[in-house]
């Protein structure tokens, strides 16, 4: 990026970002320095990509006019801790309105690919049209301009995400990689393909310790375009960390902001896995397709139980002190870590474990591993499979597929495997379409066509207004369990003002764990921008930019045909309340109706003002 001003909020056009548009049909490249339109453009991520998507009239995800936009944020590749994010945006194959139009989506991932991409000098890559032959894209740092080339990728076809990254690593030094797996290659039959992003740890250890941009099927869109992988090759660019950023980084690690995520042996809380213990206190851990039973089954996947048998390595992305990856290894006879099994983050652990009736760590690890290697979103896959199991429980005489039931590991494994290989399009197309085909939609756990995260919808009416996945784009998932909030005023303020700020992290290039409670409108971020880029931005300007970007996302949903009746929780939540959950019941029809009315009053007005 080039900064011809130190005041990007009032002079955004004096900030230029470097964009390369690749036309896969013609093989032409257009490299340009693009002036920013507003602070959202400057920040980057979906704040910029959604403005481009809004300019297109896209009726189906798999059309040549649907671009795949890969970009970074203003602090990606910076000295600020967690500045590793890469964003993938496009119209989603999986998230679709009832009118049949695809929703705009983005997905974010860590690993080191984003930083390397930024260090090549490129801020954004726009992939237009599709290639006849499988290709991969190489972005290289050269003298003064990044260089982008297309390479044949036949030799990568059919490989797992990890396999592709390992193969490319042999060819490219000092590079990091983004790759799809068999799921993305089978884009016609798998709509929730993910993009794997390499980590330093993976390249060094040769173990498949990968990070993912999983949500919304951006890997399937990449597969449709016949782009199997990307290589970002550049030298590392970080020198001495400027003092203000050092201070912010120390604050992130020691100030309590991320303490919960750090390894237990360093005095941390052990990562997102701890959500199991907390939610179980309320019997709110999803079990058997989001129907907690009020028993202690979820406790079998508590960290304390798993570590009796397995070694848990706490690891991190490049230079990140948060160390949020919980990598599960077998334990050798001498007590040292053996083979790597899988990463245990809360979402995949639950949705491919307890929520499928599986309570053995090794079995859950095998399913997470499978999803990761096939490059398939664990949330969409887990939720769609749990629907199948629930359907089969209700129809033992005429079950779906192989008749798998809750807890039947072998059959569940078969379903996940066949889905990843594109052999079960009914599951690969996600739970909305599957439930519509069976005619039983009440217990299909999606909102607006995107499967929900591992937080019971009974505890989170905010899901309805999340614009890119339940927990990543609306931070209300802990409001009831954590804060005990049951009053309308708090929920309205959270949804329309405070908790939507979480999406700022999907613009600026940082992980949410940088400061999940406060978002990016903080002195810490202000100081980082000043020290890294010499920019003067206020907290208020950052918050306002995030709000505008969010509202644009909401506006775009409505333009893509979403009716307000689609902003609702899965019907089972109100039709058959689950009294095993010990939290106050927020999801009475009266509460939801009033919440809806008040939230839309605010959002309607604000969207109007934005237009």
């Amino acid at each position, binding site marked *: 990026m080039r900064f011809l001003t130190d005041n990007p909020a009032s002079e955004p056009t004096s900030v230029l970002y470097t964009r390369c548009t690749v036309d896969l049909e013609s093989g032409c490249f257009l490299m340009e320095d693009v002036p920013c339109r507003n602070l959202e453009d400057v920040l980057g991520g979906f704040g910029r990509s959604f403005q481009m998507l809004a300019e297109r009239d896209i009726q189906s995800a798999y059309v040549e006019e649907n671009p795949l936009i890969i970009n970074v944020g203003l602090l990606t590749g910076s000295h600020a801790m967690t500045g590793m994010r890469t964003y993938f945006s496009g119209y989603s194959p999986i998230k679709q309105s009832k009118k049949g139009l695809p929703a705009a989506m983005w997905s974010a991932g860590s690993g080191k690919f984003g930083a390397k991409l930024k260090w090549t000098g490129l801020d954004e890559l726009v992939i237009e049209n599709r290639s006849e032959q499988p290709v991969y894209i190489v972005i290289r740092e050269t003298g003064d301009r990044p260089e982008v080339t297309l390479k044949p990728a036949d030799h990568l076809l059919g490989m797992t995400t990890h396999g592709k990254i390992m193969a490319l690593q042999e060819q490219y030094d000092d590079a990091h990689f983004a790759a799809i797996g068999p799921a993305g290659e089978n884009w016609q039959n798998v709509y929730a393909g993910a993009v794997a992003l390499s980590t330093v740890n993976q390249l060094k250890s040769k173990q498949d310790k990968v990070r993912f941009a999983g949500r919304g099927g951006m890997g399937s869109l990449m597969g449709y375009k016949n782009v199997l992988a990307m290589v970002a090759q550049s030298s590392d660019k970080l020198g001495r960390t400027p003092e203000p950023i050092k201070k912010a980084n120390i604050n992130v690690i020691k100030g309590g902001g991320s303490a919960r995520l750090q390894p237990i042996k360093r*005095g941390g*809380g052990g990562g997102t896995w*701890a959500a199991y*213990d*907390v939610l179980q206190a309320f019997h709110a851990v999803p079990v058997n397709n989001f129907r907690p039973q009020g028993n202690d089954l979820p406790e079998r996947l508590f960290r304390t139980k798993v570590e009796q048998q397995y070694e848990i390595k706490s690891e991190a992305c490049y230079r990140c002190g948060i160390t949020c990856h919980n990598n599960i290894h077998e334990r050798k006879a001498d007590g040292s870590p053996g083979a790597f099994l899988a990463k245990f983050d809360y*979402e995949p652990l639950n949705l491919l474990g307890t929520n499928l009736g599986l309570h053995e760590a090794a079995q859950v690890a095998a399913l997470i591993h499978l999803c990761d290697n096939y490059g398939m979103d664990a949330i969409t896959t887990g939720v769609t499979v749990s629907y199948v199991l629930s359907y089969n429980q209700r129809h033992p005489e005429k079950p779906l597929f192989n008749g798998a039931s809750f807890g039947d590991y072998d059959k569940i494994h078969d379903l996940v495997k066949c889905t990843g290989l594109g052999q079960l399009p009914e599951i690969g197309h996600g739970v909305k379409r599957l439930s519509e085909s069976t005619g039983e939609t009440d217990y299909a756990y999606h909102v607006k066509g995107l499967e929900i*995260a591992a*937080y019971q919808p009974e505890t989170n009416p905010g899901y309805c207004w999340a614009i890119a996945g339940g927990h990543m784009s609306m931070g209300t998932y*802990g409001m009831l369990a954590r804060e005990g909030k049951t009053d309308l005023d708090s929920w309205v303020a959270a949804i329309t003002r405070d908790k939507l700020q979480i999406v700022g992290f999907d613009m600026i290039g940082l992980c949410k764990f940088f400061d999940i409670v406060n978002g990016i409108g903080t002195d810490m971020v202000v100081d980082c921008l000043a020290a890294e880029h010499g920019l003067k931005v206020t907290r208020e300007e950052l918050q306002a930019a995030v709000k505008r970007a969010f509202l644009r996302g909401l506006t775009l949903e409505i333009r893509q045909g979403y009716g307000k009746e689609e902003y609702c929780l899965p019907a089972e939540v109100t039709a058959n309340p689950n009294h095993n959950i010990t939290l106050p019941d927020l999801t009475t029809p009266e509460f939801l109706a009033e919440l809806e009315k008040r939230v839309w009053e605010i959002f309607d007005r604000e969207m109007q003002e934005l237009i």
Partner: protein
Amino acid sequence: MKITVKLYAVLQVGRYREKELDFPVETKVGAVVNSLDLPSEHLDILLVNGRHVDREFLLQDGDVLSLLPMVEGG
């Protein structure tokens, strides 16, 4: 009065899961929390008999005080 203290997740490490403790009548939640010397960066949710309370809440004999860390997305 007798208060049952339940600790969750990381708060249990090196401590206990559940213990019955004696406190003077009219003890507030905050006073119990202070007496336990828990890592403040981890303590987030305070429940008495399953309901969210703050540190000013007055405990009664037989109450169950549950102390939990923050629920985190990911």
